[in-house]
């Protein structure tokens, strides 16, 4: 089943064309990743899909129904983890969740249960009474995720869920996202500019650059289009990649070189590089 369908989505901010006709489909129950460099249009897309931007061109369907930003039915269906941690700093963890609960019409015993459930799920149970401002960056991120899960959304949007987190915390965040997807049966739409994140988590990846979809498919499929092995050649003034189907071919080429080089498996960065001539991560 198709969870979200987007057709020729366009958005202008004055002279900047942030989205230049974007098409994609998100399937029910999958982890879908929007991979692209800074300014590609990831946040703009999420903002449109979640009704935070009202003016745009193009068509959006949720489970086959045309989307309208003010229709409350769609707002109940989605949970959003924005790019910035917009927790209420002066409020306790619990009060942050309470406000979200009230906004979604959850009161009384149901509210208490929902708070305990999401706190446990995100590992924040012991921090319930703490002021949100006193949490670490990773814990704030978890709180924002916990908050987005309060009303049991069918689709969770995560805008750069692990940006600014150290590698260990990032890994635990990946586990959390996976369990949201598998345990809660929640469709996950995430954006990232980390290659590894998209490769590890995503069932489907859409690579976006300057407001345009440049590639779309399963991570393995996308990589196959480039080849299996990449040879990184370290010239004095630049690094270049060449792609091969077999390790032997790559090795042969390596031997013919008189500058240092390294063989590795192809990754999504190579896909991006091959299509756009640039790198995603800077």
């Amino acid at each position, binding site marked *: 089943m198709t969870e979200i369908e987007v057709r020729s989505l366009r958005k202008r901010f004055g002279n900047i064309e942030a989205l230049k006709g974007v098409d994609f489909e998100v399937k029910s129950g999958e982890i879908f990743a929007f991979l692209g460099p800074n300014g590609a249009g990831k946040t703009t897309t999420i903002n449109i899909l979640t009704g*935070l931007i009202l003016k745009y061109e193009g068509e959006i369907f949720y489970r086959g129904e045309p989307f309208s930003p003010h229709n409350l039915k769609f707002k109940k269906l989605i949970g959003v983890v924005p790019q910035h941690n*917009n927790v209420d700093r002066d409020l306790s963890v619990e009060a942050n969740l309470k406000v979200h609960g009230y906004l979604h019409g959850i009161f009384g015993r149901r509210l208490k249960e929902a708070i305990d459930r999401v706190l446990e799920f995100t590992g924040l149970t012991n921090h319930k009474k703490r002021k949100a401002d006193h949490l670490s960056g990773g814990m704030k991120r978890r709180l924002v995720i916990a908050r987005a899960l309060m009303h049991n959304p069918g689709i969770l949007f995560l805008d750069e869920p692990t940006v600014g987190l150290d590698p260990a915390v990032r890994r635990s965040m990946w586990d959390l996202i996976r369990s949201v997807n598998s345990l809660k049966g929640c469709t996950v739409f995430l954006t990232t500019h980390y290659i590894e994140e998209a490769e590890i988590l995503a069932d489907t990846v859409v690579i976006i650059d300057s407001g345009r979809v440049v590639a779309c498919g399963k991570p393995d499929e996308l990589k196959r289009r480039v080849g299996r092995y990449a040879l990184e050649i370290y010239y004095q003034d630049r690094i270049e990649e060449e792609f091969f189907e077999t390790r032997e071919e790559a090795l042969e080429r390596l031997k013919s070189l008189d500058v240092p080089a390294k063989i590795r498996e192809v990754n999504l960065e190579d896909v991006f590089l091959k299509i756009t001539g640039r790198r995603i991560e800077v």
Partner: protein
Amino acid sequence: MKGVWAVFYREVMFLKPRFLKVMLSSIIYPALFLLAFGYGLGKNARVGNLDYVVFLIPGLITMSSMNQAYGISLEVHISRYYFKIFEEYLLAPINRWEIVVGELLYGIFKGLIPAFFITLYALISGIGIRLNLVFAICLLLHLICFSLIGYVIAMLVKSHADQAAFSSFVMVPMIFLSDTFYPIEKMPALAKYIGYLFPLTYSTKLIRGALLGIDSMVTFRNFALLFTITFALFVIAIWVTQRAEVV
């Protein structure tokens, strides 16, 4: 209605740790005015057949409660542009008018703080004011009016600087030109005309009239003007909120 409660609850929780500070600062300001103008400068002065202090007290109530109600402007602005909590409201399955009404209730709540203490002072110190339904209704309308101004400004201006400019060019002149400290009828012509543009003029007349039992101030015209301005502000507030996007 759940949205109204959620927004109000959030704002009150935000206020909670600052409550004492807000309360004190909202009382100190009118107290200083009372000392300087009421008991200092205006000691033996009279306005019409009223002691100046008696004339002043209702003006202090409207002035300080206006400041507090309008003060939600800064909080809404910060939650929209800096903490981005406002996004939570925009994402929630609530009608946009519920956000307006929630913030409005918060403005009323804040405005009632100084109004309560000044009224209490007036009652204790024997300045013959009478509490009645007309006073309650007019005070409520007054607080709604200024909460809405604060809210609309917060939603429309893009920066702190613009907000400060609005304060200096509109709110501060309003405090002085609106019959609060000095009867508007005795102002120079230009000041008088400007004063009659401000809703504070009408709410002060209504509230003074109600508290002091001066029927000539509690006119249908004054009430209708205040009501019309407030209603127009409410429509504008709904309109901007309906169109509000992420910032």
